[in-house]
């Protein structure tokens, strides 16, 4: 916890201007930022409070898309009846995330920007080595307690899991992140760690998420979010799947399928391999189960997290089968 200055800008432009300095941070619900400040990971010199900006909390559900203002809270979006109809996976992802208290505070924009729960990342006083926090310092997690670390998208520099639920659903349904006038596909909004795990998003200092748009689709309407964890509430996913399904007019041929994984990868993980394997196929349990194994293509474990490689395809298969009424 360091001293910092606190600003409450009157407009989005003022906010962007105030946050242009790399040592500045936007403050929305604060459930990530304050947490990280307390454990010594976030040390902003300037905190730019955007919670009072008007016009950024609107939720609109139109024929072609759902638009979520960046400052809409998780609980508001989760409870919105139209969203439960147009994209149940989004509502379900949100209502199974964090705790009721956190959902009441936390915003959609902040949610996308939440950071990994890697215990080594969060304890700088004890573990100086963390490439995500201090580029080039090494990775304290590899070789340590890694039950919750990623098996997909990992690099030699970092194996930290992206922990969020909402983004998994967004990636599945080709959502678009609005950063002022800029539009970034959700899948591109999250970067693989590679050699630069410190760089998690393509945002420049001062850039602010203003909204998220989710295109309407039959698959989004028939979608679900399945989150598996040891504790029934208030725990991050051991593995999760956001899945949407559209069947052809015959009621048994898969016309469109969307699959994304959470809790197992360094970013929200679109499983196109599963989608491709099933598009055009007859909806049938064995086919679905077999195809779901493709979700783990390229997976690498570090011992204690090996179970995720077995678990995730089962989660995918169950979610797909549930949507088709066969689970």
């Amino acid at each position, binding site marked *: 916890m360091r001293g910092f200055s606190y600003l409450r800008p009157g407009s989005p432009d003022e906010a962007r201007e105030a946050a242009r300095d790399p040592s500045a941070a936007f403050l929305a619900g604060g459930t990530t930022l304050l947490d990280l400040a307390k454990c010594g990971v976030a040390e902003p010199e300037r905190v730019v409070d955007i919670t009072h900006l008007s016009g950024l909390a609107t939720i609109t559900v139109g024929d072609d898309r759902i638009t979520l203002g960046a400052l809409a809270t998780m609980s508001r979006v989760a409870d919105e009846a139209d969203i439960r109809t147009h994209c149940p996976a989004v509502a379900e992802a949100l209502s199974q995330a964090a705790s009721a208290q956190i959902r009441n505070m936390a915003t959609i924009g902040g949610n996308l920007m939440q950071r990994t729960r890697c*215990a080594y990342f969060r304890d700088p006083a*004890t573990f100086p080595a963390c490439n995500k926090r201090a580029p080039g310092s090494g990775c304290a997690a590899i070789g340590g307690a890694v*039950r919750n670390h990623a098996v997909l998208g990992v690099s030699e520099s970092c194996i930290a899991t992206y922990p969020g639920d909402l983004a998994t659903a967004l990636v599945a349904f080709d959502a678009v992140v609005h950063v002022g006038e800029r539009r970034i596909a959700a899948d591109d909004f999250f970067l693989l760690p590679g050699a630069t795990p410190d760089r998690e998003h393509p945002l420049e200092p001062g850039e602010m998420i203003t909204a998220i748009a989710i295109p309407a689709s039959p698959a989004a309407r028939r979608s679900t979010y399945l989150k598996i964890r040891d504790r029934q509430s208030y725990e991050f996913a051991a593995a999760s799947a956001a899945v949407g399904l559209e069947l052809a007019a015959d009621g048994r041929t898969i016309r469109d399928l969307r699959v994304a994984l959470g809790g197992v990868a360094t970013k929200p993980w679109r499983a196109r391999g599963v989608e491709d394997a099933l598009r055009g196929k007859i909806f049938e349990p064995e086919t679905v189960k077999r195809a779901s194994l493709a979700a783990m293509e390229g997976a690498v474990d570090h011992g204690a997290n090996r179970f995720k490689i077995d678990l995730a395809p089962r989660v995918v298969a169950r979610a797909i089968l549930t949507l088709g009424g066969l689970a």
Partner: protein
Amino acid sequence: MTGTDTKTKHGDASDGSSNSLGARLSRFDGPDKIRGAARYALENHPANLAHAVIVQSTIAAGTVRAIDVAAAQVAPGVLLVLTPDNALHLDSASNWLGAPPPDAPYLPLARTVTFNGQHVAAVVAETLEQAIEAASLIRITYDATDAIPDFDDPRAGEGQPMDPMKIDWGDAETAFAAAPVRIEETYRTPREYNVPLEPHGLVAQWDGDALTIWEPSQWIDGMARTYAEWFAIPFDKVRIVSPYVGGGFGSKALACAHGAIAIMAAKMVGRPVKLAVTRPQSFTAFGGRPATRQTIALGATREGKLLSIVHRGDNETSVDGFAVEPLGAVTALMYATANLSSRQNIVPVNTVLPGPLRAPGENPSAFGIESAIDELAYAVGADPLAIRLLNYAEEDPHARKPWSTRQLREAFAVGAERFGWSRRTPAPRSMREGNQLIGWGVAAGTYPVRRTAGEALVRILADGTVEVASSSIDMGTGTYTILAQTAADALGVAPDRVRVKLGDSSLPRAPVAGGSQLANLMTGAVHKAALAARDELIGLAINHPSSPFRDVQANTLVIADGRIAAPRGNGPAVPIAELMRKIGREQIEVLRDTLPEASRSDEDRYKNFTTVATMRSPTDGDYSLHSWCAHFVEVRVDADFGTVRVSRVVSGIDSGRVYNPKLAESQWQGGIIMGIGQALLEEGIVDRRHARVVNNNLADYLIATNADIPDIEVISVGIPDPHASALGGKAVGELGIVGVAPAIANAVYHATGRRIRELPITLDKLM
């Protein structure tokens, strides 16, 4: 002195229709807590308060080479940077048995580091934020040496045998070798932590050589003794104030290093100092339950009758301390067997010294034996409930004494009935619903009745209300309420006419609120004092010249509903207040203790209240005294994911007479809830390279949430036990958790056919 000489209601546990002892009253301290009017220790802010923040080690073994305090010292608001170099000299204190301390200084800030997360330095500043910031500027360098992260490390070795824990009868090894049916398995529990909602910490204030401490405490007199010895001041110069305790589970019974640091800091800066241990720090500021492993060999007949039990247990301890988690506690008590052998080792590793956590010993012990007997049931094709009844111990098989009361058969019967046990299909994986594998499991639990003498003051006031005073504490367990009920009962007034004051050294003394003994010993003391007060009042009513009863010619009078009257109703019924006015008394005050006649010297009293040396074991006397329970559990295990959900719990419980069913049920259910967390979630995850617990926060150290908890039905089958306590109660607080984890593990086996012998039962173990 016993309860039988008054007209108290001695019913079974549910005699709750009356308005006094045995009644189902809500907690008297509840409304203040809900309104935020109950002031907890860290909410006391004396004038001129300064704030202290601790810095902990980031290595597990070695020595502190240097502490660079330059930047911290000049940070804004800093009053003091405390390190081993400028720390005040403290004496060592005696341990909780009162054994004389070593002639060496006590060092709450370590120069030699023996575990990761040990206190090394502290900062005192004007504000908490300034202290936090300055603490982050301290740079410590170490000369690290190799650490032993846990007892699985080969360098940890076998550990030290605990000879006093040896139990032997018959010839267990030979009988095992000759038994027609043999099973032998190892059961393990991980490090588990006390995570009460209220954090640890204190506010310390010096006034000359008098010390006032606001601190949550399970044992005011014991902690005051330690503080007095550390700081070499007289015991009666230490006042601890602890009217409310937000949970402790054993972790708030003893003074900790952070207490010494705060008190030392207050002395050095000449101001009151507040120190709150952060949640991450709390994982190493005091110890939780140590990791345990036990190997249990059961030899039995083909019908499942036990012939022999061979038990070998280990628990982790710290390299510079001594902690025993008695793993044979239930093993040698629950079942009849002609041959038994039990041994225990403690294995030093680089960890904080483990401490008590709800039912230390009994809890992991039951996980072992209650899993093993279940394995035996399957091995011989017996019903898991039937095999427990087949091996029912009619007397204490170890002490060879009769049970005072043992309603375990009744607990099994009522639990099985309410649960529907007879509809269970025996084969594993035989009860499926879609993707859900359903399993039913049973296990028993027990907790001993421990006894220490108590003391209480009862005061009848001029307005007819009553005050009860004791330095004993209420950590949400219901002490305020049941002591009011006890006094009300003995004095014949309504419980809401009784005000109970607790948790302050200035009040009559009390021993530790641990070992589930407090309710029984304090109701005994309050009952005794209240009867004496009643007798004094009645004596005055009969004899005082201005009493309205002067002419009634009664040998005695009765008090009911706050009115005094002649026993046969001949004559007036006078409210207590009116009598007090007539006889011109401001108050009647009686102080009583329950110490044995022969040990009431000042020295005896000091020992009784500040050590556990006088605590009587459950088998001291003619009987063996224990509480008992039987848990029936249904789980649903997802066939693909291995996730376990507890969907139903029914428990039959024998805690003897129950003073307030609502509060006792809440304790039992709380224990069961904690047991569900222990079975499925709780585990300190150690990074073995650093010997550090890395999930040291409540997002990552998982305890059960509401969503994990089904309806829990607890049914009291206890009967008043006159041998166990003055008013007939047995242990309540720690009982409920014992046996929950094995009941769940047994249910998981029934559901899946997979025997999980290592807690917690996480999904990866079942996939």
